[in-house]
């Protein structure tokens, strides 16, 4: 259920070789998908440092999407496997931080999967609308008077 027209803000990291090209294809094919995603191109999903994701959440984004090549297809042989290990640990730690692990999503989208890219963004936006906004750092109460 949509919480009073809440529009989630999603930060995306897309690998240059597959997902970014897939997003490009979605665009050139004029496939419609929700405008909630802000995308950053990185050379490989293995380039995405967990610190980037933590910083995004600290700054208040509602979800982070990381897109890489399908397993076995990584341009750098195994960067996507590294991403898979990192994201698994990071999701585990986000749960400890009280941030729903569903807010961090890792997806494999190839350069030919424009429609799938649009589907992933639509699906993730829907998930985040159901979750509602991220609990913000600014709401941290220090004193009883706050």
């Amino acid at each position, binding site marked *: 259920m949509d919480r009073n027209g809440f529009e989630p803000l999603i930060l995306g990291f897309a690998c240059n070789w597959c997902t970014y090209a897939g997003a490009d294809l979605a665009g050139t094919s004029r496939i419609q998908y929700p405008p909630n995603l802000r995308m950053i191109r990185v050379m490989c999903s293995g380039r995405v*440092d967990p610190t980037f994701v933590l910083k995004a959440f*600290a700054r208040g984004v509602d979800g982070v999407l990381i897109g890489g090549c399908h397993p076995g297809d990584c341009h750098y042989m195994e960067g996507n496997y*590294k991403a*898979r290990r990192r994201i698994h640990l990071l999701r585990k*730690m986000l749960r400890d931080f009280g941030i729903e692990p569903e807010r961090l999503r890792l997806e494999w989208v190839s350069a030919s999967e424009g429609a799938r890219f649009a589907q992933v963004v639509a699906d993730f936006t829907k998930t985040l609308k159901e979750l509602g906004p991220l609990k913000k750092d600014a709401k941290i109460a220090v*004193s*009883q008077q706050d």
Partner: protein
Amino acid sequence: MAQKPKLALYWAASCGGCEIAVVRLYAKILDVAEAFDIVLWPCIMDFKYKDVEVLPDKSIDVCLFNGAIRNSEQEHMAHLLREKSKVLVAYGTCAYMGGIPGLANVANRESIFELVYHDTPSTANDNGVRPQLSYQVPEGELTLPEFYDTVRTLAQVVPVEYFVPGCPPVREQTEAVLQAVMEGQLPAPGSVVGASDKTVCYDCTRIREDKRIRGFHRPYEIIPDSTHCLLEQGIICAGLATRGGCGAPCLSVNMPCRGCYGPPPNVFDQGGKLLSALASIIDTQDQDEIERIADTVPDLLGVCYLFGLPASMLRRVRQD
């Protein structure tokens, strides 16, 4: 004779180890007493807060402040000492990054009080007595400092000139810092002093080969080889995400680095970097196996942010 520079030391939310670290200068402590006029050091000498309150602003040359800020008294003293000091130093990991008390940021005041004043088996508190900010007795009003929900670092409360990391800072580094203060050889404000710009691995003498592991162990679960890298043996060592300068004393007694010197230069989030390193050395590409290996770490947040939760990017666990 020229007036001696004034030195103050204060103890906020910390265990007292930092006080010991200063006393542990041994005979050199006499040089410190010789060089400085000590105006506040509640742990060692008898001073009252009002002695500090009457000092003119900026009259204390150096204040070594240890401990995080988690109640109103500590916050008041942080502001007071900031006002009275020319140079305020966050001395020790608690003041620098929150330290062990900073782990309370996984909880909040209510759950801590519930545990301490009710749940612990050794507590008999049938009337549910909790600390009150003020209480009326026939003699007048009694007050207590307010306990906060969130632990903060010193720099999150007042501006700080220098940071001396360490739980506690090692003797040689404390000595070097005080020496630098006496000689007026301090670097640019905002710097971390009394530590190196490299990681603990640089100080560690263990043999490093190939880091590929199929499971993590806690230190008590195995007897590690004392000559090889502990991380290669599956014991989580934070050395590679931690600033050096301590001389790696933990490693020399077969214990892993826990990260007390904080992140190395240009790293914004120590835990994120440690997590990244741990993920990198897991030797599998299979999702189920990754999950199995990840589950061998019982408390990922606790391991990654043992000393720096309040200074981390997310600062605390989110609450409803």
